[in-house]
């Protein structure tokens, strides 16, 4: 396995320090690197960095390493790690925060479907108040990798036959109320 050496000068300690001030990220520095989170995470074997490694890198200030990782996008927000962590580190919230920052700083892997899905989803919800499963998936596929539509066709057909695939584009009535929800701003929040 290729090993990468990281030098202290590449670290951004101020970033790490600021990080702990955000909701849910307060206990970052309490991590004892026990690895319970990685052991609990159903997805850690598919990740490039394990959750424990993510925590270690964040608090040492290796910003780009974590923001570019696939790990944060594989995290399914299942909260297993957060429930099991002996130090009550809310790893899930830390992952969320990293996802938000990766999107804002455009650091996610290009054409990687998950951030694309996230954007499509949010646009649709802000414009219509509801998401229509079919249209979100369709638009995500068109923007990331249209070929996956072929492999989805079979499942789609099955769902359609059972009346589980609605092509209706849902919309709430009082859509004007949503205009007061800020559009995703430059700032990470």
């Amino acid at each position: 396995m290729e090993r990468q050496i990281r030098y202290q000068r590449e670290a951004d300690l101020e970033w790490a320090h600021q990080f702990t001030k955000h909701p849910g990220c307060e206990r970052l520095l309490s991590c004892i690197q026990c690895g319970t989170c990685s052991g609990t995470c159903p997805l850690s074997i598919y990740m490039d960095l394990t959750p424990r490694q993510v925590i270690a890198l964040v608090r040492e200030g290796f910003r780009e390493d974590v923001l570019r990782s696939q790990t944060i996008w594989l995290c399914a927000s299942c909260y297993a790690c957060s429930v099991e962590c002996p130090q009550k580190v809310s790893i899930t919230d830390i992952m969320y925060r990293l996802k938000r920052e990766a999107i804002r700083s455009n650091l996610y892997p290009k054409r990687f479907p998950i951030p694309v899905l996230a954007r499509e989803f949010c646009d649709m919800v802000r414009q219509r108040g509801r998401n229509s499963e079919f249209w979100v998936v369709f638009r995500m596929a068109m923007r990331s990798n249209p070929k996956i539509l072929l492999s989805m066709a079979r499942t789609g057909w099955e769902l359609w036959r059972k009346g589980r695939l609605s092509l209706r584009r849902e919309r709430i009535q009082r859509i004007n109320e949503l205009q007061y929800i800020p559009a995703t701003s430059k700032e990470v929040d």
Partner: protein
Amino acid sequence: MEPSARYLYYPGCSLKGTGIAYEESLLTTFRLLEMPVKELPDWNCCGATTYMSVSETSATLLAARNLALARQTGSKDLIAPCNACYLTLRKSQRLVADYPQIAQETERFLEQAGLPRLDSVRVRHPLEVLYNDVGIQRLRELTVRRLQGVRMASYYGCQAVRPYGEVDDPHEPTRMDEILRAVGVEVVGYNLKTKCCGGPLTGTIHDVGVRLNYILLKEAMRLGAQAMVTICPLCQFNLDAYQAEIRKQTGEPIDMPILYLTQVVGWALGGDYRELGLHRAISGRKLLEQWFTVRKEAETYV
């Protein structure tokens, strides 16, 4: 104004689409229990895990609108059957309670939108309503028919039992087993009850998502379960929709019905096949028909 129903119901987007059988069976079950539920008028998407990945503030405001609408109706109990909706709504309440800045933003938004301030709306999950408000004893009494010798694995998925909920114990949840036994179902000791199904991963990083579901199904089979019982539309979809693909990939003869808890309970209370949405399953259809279509002679009335 019509008298407010005790229970309001927040469907969320899935229960109007892929999870429509959850809505059908939930409404049927509550009707049979004589606990009418009313759909929250003009509800909006909860934001799910996705909005939280883009903006925490906006995600909280989206959830807050629903809570404010609930308050307007005068009901105190808002049932959110989808695990992701349930968690998101409750998480937003926690964020508002714990962080003054988020509370301020929320207040400002509600004021601009002309909505009432947040108040003590209780976000409930159907599993916990069945357990706490109806109770095991009453469910046992109301059961009019039992499945004979069918073993099932109860599967919670992840978000319902995690930090913001009060559905069940996050480490060793048992309430679903108790409910299933009360209505006459045999349960196996399934130890992956709260292992995540991958949520949207089957649609994004497909192979990984399918793999997680294969593990869940295989373990249920190994334990001798003939079906799995879920309480979340995404879990149900993931476990149900990809079995053909898993069969092809692994050669494993998996064809297992994936039920909603409300389908099993609703059937025990006397609901029928179609009104419980049992005809909408993709996998294990033969078994479903065998178990749940009315064959008077094979039913044991109790």
